[in-house]
């Protein structure tokens, strides 16, 4: 019998929601655990930080200070395969919204003695280390998590979603929130794989899964402008889970 895959689950600056999705595998987690040895999962287990090498690390959260950057580099050295798990790890996520406010100002809004607080800008993991695979979304998708874990077990490259949320939404036959209600929807440029969850619930896509390479963000924004979406709302939409690379915005 082949040795079980040694996996660690780590948390940086985040809400633990993506780790929760792992717990949400529920009884199938027990099936997954037939192939995987969870060496470190502090939220649900007393494990100490492993010293021996790991086959894979699932890292949740953004990097927001030097300590986290050092921790991430340590995890990287320890792990053969590193998975950026969720929007915060992939792009900085909601934490990155504060990056556009001058440093120091943010801290003083929340804390009366901000000198105690050490926190810089928030970044995704790939600003600091090589990332081998991404699980997108806020939070990550349960099926994609299982697929990635099983790909690791089988030692094949994990599946990478190659279609947009908009395509998935069309395949589901949903009424388009942009065409019918003029709501700016990021579906046409966002990595699919969530099954167009938000638009299927009458909510415009907020882009939590990041930009799919090769899509035309500028074109989408022009379409919003033509439909009368206010410049202010466009600016806000482009700075949420992901800061979109759109010229002049």
């Amino acid at each position: 019998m082949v040795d079980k895959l040694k996996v660690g689950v780590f948390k940086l600056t985040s809400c633990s929601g993506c780790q929760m999705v792992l717990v949400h595998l529920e009884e199938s987690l027990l099936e997954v655990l037939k192939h995987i040895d969870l060496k470190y999962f502090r939220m649900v287990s007393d494990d100490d930080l492993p010293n021996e090498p790991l086959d894979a690390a699932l890292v949740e959260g953004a990097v927001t200070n030097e300590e986290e950057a050092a921790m991430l580099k340590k995890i990287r050295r320890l792990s053969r395969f590193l998975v950026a798990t969720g929007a915060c790890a992939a792009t900085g996520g909601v934490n990155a919204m504060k990056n556009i406010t001058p440093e120091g100002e943010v801290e003083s809004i929340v804390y009366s003695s901000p000198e105690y607080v050490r926190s810089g800008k928030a970044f995704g993991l790939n600003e600091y280390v090589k990332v081998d695979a991404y699980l997108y979304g806020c939070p990550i998708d349960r099926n994609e998590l299982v697929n990635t874990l099983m790909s690791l077990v089988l030692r094949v490259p994990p599946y990478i979603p190659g279609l947009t949320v908009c395509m998935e939404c069309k395949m589901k036959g949903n009424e388009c929130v942009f065409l019918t209600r003029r709501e700016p929807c990021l579906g046409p440029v966002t990595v699919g794989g969530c099954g167009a969850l938000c638009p299927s619930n009458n909510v415009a896509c907020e882009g939590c899964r990041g930009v799919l390479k090769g899509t035309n963000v500028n074109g989408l924004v022009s379409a919003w402008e033509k439909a009368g979406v206010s410049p202010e709302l466009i600016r806000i939409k482009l700075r949420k889970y992901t800061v979109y690379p759109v010229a002049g915005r």
Partner: protein
Amino acid sequence: MADRTIVYEYISRVEGQGSLEVTISGGEVVDAKLKIFEAPRFFEAFLRGRKALELPELTARICGICPIAHVITAAKAVENALEIALDEKTIALRKALALSGIMQSHALHVYFLAAPDFLGYPSAIAASKDLADVVRRGFRLKRVANMVSEYIGGRAVHPVTLTVGGFTKPPHADGLEKVHNALENALRDALETVKLVSGFNYPEFEPNHVNVALSSGDGYAITEGFAKASSGEYFESRDYRRYVSEEQVPHSNTKRSMFKNNSAFEVGPVSRFNLNYESLCNTAKEAAEKAGIKPPVKNPFKSTIVRAVEIVQAIEEMRSILGEGVSIPPPRKTRFRQSSGSALTEAPRGLLYHSYSIDRDGNVLNADIVTPTAHNSWRIERDVFELVPSVAHLDDESLKRLLGMLVRAYDPCISCSVHAFTVKLNRT
């Protein structure tokens, strides 16, 4: 007795990253610090300038364990600001969603965070080798809770349907039967859970706490009502700041939440149970009676039993609300004006406060959020002071284990609380 310092680095089986440092001299605690090294995320800062309609969605991201509580509280605060009154069915459906969130969180806590201490395992996963039936029951309860959250909210973590003014989409009638069947089976599992945890060996400890919880004349208060304290005070969300203050204190890294400027207080399942016992359904009351608990529960360790009883309550109430199906109107339209609004609800871990000011264009001018764990943090530290003298004879390792259990009894949610804590990074 020699002076000693007990340090519990990166407390396991709690949400987020915190440590406990306790200094003992002559059998008495001279200092107890619940330190949070989790990096703060500055929600109150980056919410400024965002749209009020985004608040439920964005504040969900404060916490992956109790996003539902944040979504509902944010929506209510904005609705209060704009004086939007909701219909009874929408209010009831929100309560059912909130209850599913409480059940999710309690199932996680009882089986995966707390039980390993009492069963003698480092984790539920490790316990599953010997106690597969028990662990599977925990997973089943979690699955049913998630199913209801998904049915009403569209997703279990960070739900999507709840919006200012109502829901973007009503739950579909087709899924209802499956949900009811699951809830019916879950009730058996929940009652088994009460039995299981009532058999645990709880440390003896009966401190006197001020309990604070939401209360209302209409059922077990979760999403509607006013705050009530065991010391006799009542207040509404708009008066919250007159009763609860925060203070930075020397020698401690946490910002203390204080009740009426001087006392530590407790929020959460025990407070709800103690203050609203009469509003529990009969099934939950009977379960509590069989488990040997009645108000006032003073032992914080026994919060695990109360959580199990609350799972029973949540199941019964969700069944009753979902009934033959809930038809709700489309969300109420929002018309913005310069205004402020606040809301108090019961998150799984207790009283949660959101307050916002918004301008006439619907932009957020100011945000103030205080989470249950922030409310409880001073209470946890005070408990350490009160517990240790009776157990000071224990060796360091046993004492550390016991103190870990004490912290865990409050089910602290550290990601939630960090924007309310002053943070000193002391990771080693």
